[in-house]
């Protein structure tokens, strides 16, 4: 009885430490994504970017955070008080929750005991991620509605319509991957892609669909209809200020980080890289490889944002319903046929 309790306790501490590390990592990456975004934008536009706060402007995210905290926390009179306060927190919570099922590596050996580099090995990992990303729209929707501002409401409506449209194609792209790997668990998916046996070689079209959809899900340009400044002032966060606004902006960067990690795990071999054993450095090589891939995709996200102008809303809907969903269904059928042919 005591032995069992001790084992449970050890497992609990192990998981709590892992969660805290992952939490810190996610927040850190999100904070420095804001810096990276501004640097990438500047470099693509022949500018220098932030370089005043600290060497190369590396303290910029901290200064920005301090600025956000010291701003006036304004609330409109007619706002729905509790929902208005709740929404940014809900958005942030959902954004942070998705990181739980991503396998960061095989195993880490600490003090002689192997530690799984995954907070929770759910056997429906990818479904969990889909579920939570769909919940993410509630933060936007509730926030936009509770602000009692027509521009916020427009932003919220656009965000929800966009999420619904693109989640379908995204889900269909994932179904093809699931048919290919025969599992819903992200850990097994990553393990199956050992070496250079990545899913991208079997699912190029699926990857393209998934990538476009994750741009839309993250509300990133060219699909940033929910907050397009030129049309809707700030979209759903028009009425937000101070750290509530900070939560929204921050959670978007967290979303971007997580979806880049998911793209890497689903299509680009996760922690695998040919010639690199994820067990090196006592298991730390896996997380390093996955982070490198994730950062690469974050860079691509930013690169796209500072290259392409925003879609018009009807173009967005047409692309989602008339192009991506038929393509995703075609991809699914082709994958099914391929699996049937080659598995026998």
């Amino acid at each position, binding site marked *: 009885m005591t032995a069992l309790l001790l084992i449970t306790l050890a497992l609990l501490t192990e998981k709590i430490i892992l969660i805290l590390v992952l939490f810190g990592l996610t927040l850190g990456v999100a904070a420095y994504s804001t810096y990276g975004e501004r640097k*990438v934008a*500047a*470099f*693509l*536009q*022949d*500018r*220098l970017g932030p*370089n005043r706060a600290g060497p190369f402007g590396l303290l910029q995210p901290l200064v920005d955070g301090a600025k956000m905290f010291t701003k006036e926390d304004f609330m409109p009179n007619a706002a729905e008080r509790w929902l208005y306060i709740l929404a940014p927190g809900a958005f942030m919570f959902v954004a942070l929750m998705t990181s739980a099922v991503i396998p960061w590596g095989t195993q880490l050996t600490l003090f002689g005991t192997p530690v799984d580099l995954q907070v929770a090995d759910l056997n429906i990992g990818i479904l969990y991620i889909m579920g939570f990303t769909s919940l993410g729209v509630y933060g936007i929707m509730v926030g936009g509605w509770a602000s009692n501002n027509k521009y916020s409401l427009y932003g919220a409506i656009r965000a929800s319509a966009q999420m619904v449209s693109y989640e379908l194609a995204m889900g269909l792209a994932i179904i093809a991957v699931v048919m290919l790997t025969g599992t819903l668990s992200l850990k097994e998916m990553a393990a199956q892609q050992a070496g250079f046996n990545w899913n991208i070689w079997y699912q190029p079209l699926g990857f393209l669909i998934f990538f476009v959809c994750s741009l839309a899900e993250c509300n990133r340009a060219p699909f940033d209809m929910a907050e397009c400044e030129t049309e809707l002032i700030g979209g759903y966060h028009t009425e937000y200020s101070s750290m509530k606004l900070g939560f929204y902006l921050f959670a978007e960067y967290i979303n971007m980080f997580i979806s880049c990690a998911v793209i890497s795990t689903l299509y680009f071999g996760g922690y695998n890289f040919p010639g690199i054993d994820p067990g090196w450095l006592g298991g730390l090589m896996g997380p390093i490889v996955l982070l490198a891939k994730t950062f690469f995709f974050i860079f691509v996200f930013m*690169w*796209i944002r*500072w*290259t*392409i102008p925003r879609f018009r809303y009807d173009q967005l809907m047409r*692309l989602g319903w008339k*192009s991506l969903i038929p393509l995703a269904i075609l991809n699914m059928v082709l994958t099914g046929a391929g699996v049937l042919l080659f598995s026998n």
Partner: protein
Amino acid sequence: MQLTNRSKNVVNKKMSFWERIYLPAVLAGMWTTIKHFFRKKNALNYPEVKRPFAPVYRGWHVLKRDAQGRENCTACGLCAVACPAEAITMEAAERKKGEENLYREEKYAAVYEINMLRCIFCGLCEEACPKEAIFLTDRIVPADYVRQNFIFGKDLLVEGVEPEKRVDVTVRQKHLTEKKAVELAS
């Protein structure tokens, strides 16, 4: 009249398949931007590094001293007459004994004021000046909240005696002589 050949004829045709799937255009755009990523940056670290002004730039005036540190201006008033905005006023005074180290000639400007809100920075004053006393420099007139502060007196216009407080106008001077030579030739 056609000024450039940059204009393009716009045709409202249906998009082809490759245009409709956006991807080739998107990739072409990304190729353009990534080339800029590695290009030399146009921006400067402004307060530390400043872009040189063109010699035609006309900013904050300076009243020059000669090599011995004596004021060049003799308060002849030609600049004030030339000024189309009537921004310059001055009061002349006679040089006393013992002031030979301050003023180059027997007459000097006791008061010399330029109203920077009236000034249109045309540079006619420096062209009118027979003594090479006034020049427009590449210094920018700072902003202020009070109108009175824009009337610049001698304290703001005359350059210092010390070498480090002198205002370098050689580029401007060279530009003006060249301009004058061109005008005389034509």
